[in-house]
């Protein structure tokens, strides 16, 4: 293995098991890296050095006693700030939750703790996960480690940037319309959105409950599989979680890495290409397809005719659910409380209004207004009701496509990372970035984004998306890992090796 911060999580787990490194060493190395580069990148909203080191000490004691809790025991991780962490701030990138410390852990966080992974801190995100650039964070944007003038994707730009900049080997993200996969694509990292219901949402501060999923953010497909198996599976606290065992994801990733895709039918989605798709992104996509064919896959084109309506349906369903979810932020029980100006003895309602006015950013307010409108009496059928019908049709498109093929593929995002500020005044242009990722959320199917190389125009990373039927998450791991292996071989190493180092100091190699 290379060194403490450039190794994969699987390699770190092996080194810990072999005793060639301690969790304290690993955790400290990542804290040092954060101290060195996060001033520029701003991937973290909160770093918990003390807590992480405490957990690392405990992990080392377990290793010494021969009683590790899990293969990843002692491997540090970063957590998106939308997941409740007992004792650690959880702001969702919003001023309205500034200073709130949850009294409980999200189920996925509890599972990380139960497996002994030190939690490095909480990562930056678009406010309440609304955005594709992390520029909508109330605490300032995260920057793309490939080019600090560019966005790291969103909403989970913090988790993707932390992993891409080697400030964490693993991170948790959440994906409502692409918030794991699109940041993965533009930062050259791997991100997986599991099947809806595959990972507990308990403790995930909901953006749109029917679309949200927690998933892994990593540098390799195998690492995602390891983390996915750890956080996934049934949770009685989440009624929508699926009560059946996860498929073998790590096994599927290992099988794919062996490079044989004989008999696998791959469908290229006709609708996810054309005008507006960056040529360099399409070129990397075509190359990747060739590699899949070389590995034995059969590639065909498949039409999903209703995908063209996905974005419109998404921007009705999401704001509708979000407008209701965000009603709880009313200054009555927790979080920000703003007293209205010029009112002597304000009523509860006036305090709510003043707090929500001051505490929510523009994008959040925009979506609350949209959602409130879409649910209003007299408009419900035309907007929310109609959007749900489109959603059904998109599900049928997937079902029909998966009759013909085992997986569907597309570029993850139409472009590489754009410049900070470039699309801030044009919400529709921003929304279009999620064109390819949204259908999976509407249908609840799993998807992975794997780095496909650098676009010729700008030398920035592009992503390759693999989608599979619900509950067949193992397929995205198998195909994703096969592509990753072929590309890594072609590049002579991981894509991230080509990224700027961001600092002059080098971390010492492991013994």
């Amino acid at each position, binding site marked *: 293995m290379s060194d403490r911060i450039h190794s994969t999580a699987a390699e770190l787990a092996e080194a810990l098991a072999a005793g060639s490194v301690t969790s304290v060493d690993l955790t400290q190395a990542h804290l040092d890296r954060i101290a060195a580069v996060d001033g520029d990148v701003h991937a973290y909203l909160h770093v918990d050095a003390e807590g992480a080191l405490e957990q690392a000490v405990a992990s080392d004691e377990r290793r010494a006693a021969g009683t590790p809790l899990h293969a990843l025991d002692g491997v540090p991780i970063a957590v998106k700030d939308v*997941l*409740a962490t007992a004792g650690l701030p*959880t702001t*969702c990138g919003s001023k309205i*939750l500034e200073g*709130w410390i*949850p*009294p*409980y852990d*999200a189920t996925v966080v509890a599972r990380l703790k139960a497996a002994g992974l030190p939690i490095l801190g909480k990562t930056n995100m678009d406010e309440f996960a609304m955005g594709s650039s992390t520029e909508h964070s109330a605490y300032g944007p995260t920057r793309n480690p490939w080019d600090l003038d560019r966005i790291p994707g969103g909403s989970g730009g913090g988790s993707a940037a932390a992993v891409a900049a080697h400030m964490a080997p693993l991170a948790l993200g959440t994906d409502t319309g692409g918030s794991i996969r699109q940041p993965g694509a533009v930062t050259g990292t791997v991100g997986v959105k599991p099947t809806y219901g595959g990972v507990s*949402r*308990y*403790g*995930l*501060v*909901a953006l*749109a*409950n*029917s679309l949200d999923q927690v998933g892994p953010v990593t540098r390799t497909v195998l690492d995602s599989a390891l983390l996915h198996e750890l956080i996934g599976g049934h949770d*009685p*606290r*989440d*009624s*929508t979680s699926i009560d059946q065992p996860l498929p073998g994801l790590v096994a599927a990733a290992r099988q794919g890495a062996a490079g044989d895709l004989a008999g696998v039918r791959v469908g290229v989605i006709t609708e996810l290409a054309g005008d507006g798709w960056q040529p360099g992104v399409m070129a990397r996509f075509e190359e990747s397809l060739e590699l899949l064919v070389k590995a034995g896959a059969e590639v065909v084109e498949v039409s999903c005719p209703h995908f063209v309506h996905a974005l419109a349906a998404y921007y009705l369903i999401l704001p*509708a*659910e979000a*407008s*209701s979810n965000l*009603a*709880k*932020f*009313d200054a*009555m*029980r*927790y979080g920000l409380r703003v007293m209205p100006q010029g009112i002597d003895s304000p009523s*509860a*309602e006036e305090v*709510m209004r003043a707090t929500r006015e001051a505490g929510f950013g523009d994008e959040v307010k925009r979506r609350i207004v949209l959602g*409130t409108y879409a*649910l*209003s*009496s007299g408009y*419900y059928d035309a907007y*929310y009701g109609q959007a749900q019908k489109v959603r059904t049709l998109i599900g049928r498109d997937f079902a029909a496509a998966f009759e013909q093929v085992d997986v569907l593929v597309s570029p993850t995002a139409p472009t590489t990372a754009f410049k900070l500020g470039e699309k801030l005044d044009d919400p529709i242009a921003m929304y279009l970035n999620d064109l390819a990722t949204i259908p999976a959320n509407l249908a609840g199917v799993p998807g992975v984004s794997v780095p496909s190389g650098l676009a010729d125009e700008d030398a920035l990373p592009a992503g390759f998306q693999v989608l599979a039927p619900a509950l067949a998450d193992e397929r995205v791991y198998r195909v994703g890992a096969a592509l990753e292996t072929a590309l890594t071989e072609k590049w002579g190493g991981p894509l991230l090796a080509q990224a700027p180092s961001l600092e002059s100091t080098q971390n010492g190699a492991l013994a």
Partner: protein
Amino acid sequence: MSDTLVAFDEVLTRYEPALGLEVHVELNTNTKMFCGCPTAFGAEPNTQVCPTCLGLPGAMPVVNQVGVESAIRIGLALNCSIAEWCRFARKNYFYPDMPKNFQTSQYDEPIAFDGWMDVEITGDDGPETFRVEIERAHMEEDTGKSTHIGSSGRIHGADYSLVDYNRAGIPLIEIVTKPITGAGEKAPLVARAYVQQLRELIVALGVSEARMDQGNLRADVNLSLAASGSGVLGTRTETKNVNSFRSVERAVRFEMQRHAGVLDAGGSILQETRHWHEDTGITTSGREKSDAEDYRYFPEPDLVPVAASREWVEELRGTLPENPTARRARLQADWGFTEPEMRDTVNAGALDLVEQTIGAGVSASAAKKWWLGELARSAKESDVELSDLPVTPALVAEVQGLVDAGTLNDKLARQVFEGLLAGEGTPAEIVEARGLAMVSDDGALSAAVDEAIAANPEVAEKIRDGKVQAAGALIGSVMKAMRGQADAARVRELILEKLT
């Protein structure tokens, strides 16, 4: 703001009332509807709460299966169809005592729908049955409880308000009738009888404490008037939280009279929420809620649909208790009670107690005598339910057993009940301690009779002359001498033996 009221009888000469009743039943599940928090009444504020019922960011609901079961059983008992598949919905509005600022409820997919209940009323023409159609029964959660601190006790003008979230998330079933038309002058009685019999049904099902005074059962009364014979429904008002049977009847009467006053004057009824004032017996406009709310209902995405299998529904149907109305008819026939006797028994809350007392071997008339007499009086005096008295059907049977054995007469038995209510021990102990047993020694009785004859020679003479009914005066004299502790029948026998 004084309302012009039209005399009740006059209202009916021009208008036809339509009623609608919405009753909220707080279930007696051990835990809340969507989390594992306990539901016990009277705990310290905000001690029975968790991330879910406090609406903390990220927390999620899980449906209480017992709550669903209770809802289905209520639905079945109201002759409803049970949905094969239904969802919860969010009812969105802002209020400080609602943790999420939406209430998890049901909207267009209630768990139970299209039922009926036959309501018995007694009007001037004797008993009569009126069928009330049930629109729906649906599941929802209660809100927290606000207490407004300040001179007014209401939200306006309060210095500050306190919120207790212990109640937030307690399961509620809302039962809604279809418009009830054709009741005419009996509308107030039908409304009262419906709520009363619905409560009986809920109690028989054992799904709620159903105490109106504790808010376990809360009624909202909808009322509208239409011109007689017009065949349409008028604009309705909804009078909230009418929390006793008598108030339900009064609220309907009041609103009928008030509506008629407005309509007679050429005005129109404002569709609004109204508050009921128990003390003055009037309703007033609930202005703060008069503007039409848009609750923006949509299916709750955090909960999966409730799909009650037909097998389960049939299994639950098998657990339904006998219909209270049918049961009452059966018991009345078995016991030989008259209609008023039966009504008194029911109204006193003594039906179960009398039934159990009879089951313990006491005659129907004796059981009724004790529960509706001595014991009902005592319950009323101490303002408790009959069933909360320290006297059980078994104890009543024990006392009656002493009467039947001749140890006590009714008058002495009353003293035993006094002792029981005062917690003086078992009936036998009380008889012993208070020295209540009757004198059964014929020698002592005979001596007392002789004394009475000697003291009342004229009366004795009349009896000797064949005027047997005069014995009463002597019996009274003997009983007095014996301080009541004698068997009056035996005393009579002795008198007659000696004088005839």
